[in-house]
């Protein structure tokens, strides 16, 4: 019971004090989970992170689930996940309630008019970074540009594109094998 409470509190802290999610969380997890609580080794955390990134869902939640499961099984994984999402729930609900009440004010509208352009820059930069990291060959470039065009031009569910993109990875070596007798 004490360890469950501990799991919740530690992941609450991690969720409440990291901005941006993903890699921003890594140093915090290393300090809290590896150095202080010794719930996992440095290598294990890196593995969790790598796998958390390539499994569906939010990376921070995946990492919390891994560590919670390792310590206390299924209950542990649920408690750690609840901890990591709890601060977000509270803070974002307060902000959303505030914005809903004040979104008609000219000041708020002016602010968000400009913020939207800033968000555009943030995403542009994120996509450029991702392109450098994930597009490693011609096939990658074709897939990225193809996914972009299909998504912009047609009303296709992202699920279809994700499944097609992943499925091609398994199909491609098979197709290459067929061509070369």
């Amino acid at each position, binding site marked *: 019971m004490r360890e469950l409470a501990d799991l919740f509190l530690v992941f609450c802290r991690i969720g409440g004090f990291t901005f941006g999610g993903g890699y921003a969380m890594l140093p915090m997890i290393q300090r809290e989970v590896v150095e202080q609580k010794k719930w996992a080794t440095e290598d294990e955390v890196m593995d969790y992170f790598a796998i958390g990134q390539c499994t569906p869902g939010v990376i921070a939640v995946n990492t919390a689930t891994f560590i919670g499961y390792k310590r206390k099984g299924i209950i542990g994984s649920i408690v750690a996940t609840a901890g990591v999402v709890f601060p977000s729930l509270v803070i974002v*609900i307060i902000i959303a309630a505030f914005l809903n009440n004040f979104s008609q004010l000219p000041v708020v509208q002016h602010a968000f008019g400009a913020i939207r352009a800033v968000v555009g820059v943030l995403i542009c930069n994120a996509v450029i970074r991702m392109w450098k990291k994930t597009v490693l060959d011609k096939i990658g470039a074709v897939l990225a540009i193809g996914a972009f065009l299909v998504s912009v031009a047609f009303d296709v569910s992202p699920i279809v594109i994700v499944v097609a993109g992943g499925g091609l990875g398994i199909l491609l070596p098979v197709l290459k094998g067929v061509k070369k007798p």
Partner: protein
Amino acid sequence: MTEMVILFLEFFKTGLFAIGGGLATLPFLYDMADKYDWFTRDMIADMIAVSESTPGPMGINMATYTGFQNMGVLGSIIATVGLVTPSIIIIILVSKFLEKFRDSKYVERTFSTLRPTVTGLIGAAGFSVLAEALFHTEALKKGNMDWADFFQPKECILFVVFFILMNKFDKHPIFYIVLGAVIGIVFRF
């Protein structure tokens, strides 16, 4: 009641297929904006701004914000639980076969093509954010467009200036969002 189930299922789907972190939820949010009247495409950019400026994982912030806009506090909890449920199930399964998962050639092959695909998908979502922010897209849709009215000049200038600033100075995104808000208020965007 049925709407709660739909909300849960939409975020469950998002949690199941959004691979690669917070921004990967974006294409799914645009999909939801088109399918339901929960929120507009415009509001997605606001959600990103709020998510980037508040602590916590971005995907969770997006789910909480979206759920709240739609159904208040209960909605935010439903959306968040929907988003994390697939993660919990998948990670518990992966935990049991950690070694096999890490060394599987099929997993590796899937992700070698999935990663660039997701980059393209997020790029498309970014394109939507930019189109809404920098251009008068409604005028284009209505067809009665005057090209001079198409661009929003202030927003376009801000975009270019911030693009240069962000690539020169490695400041936290919150810094730029707050700076943007101040500029927006001063120059009446």
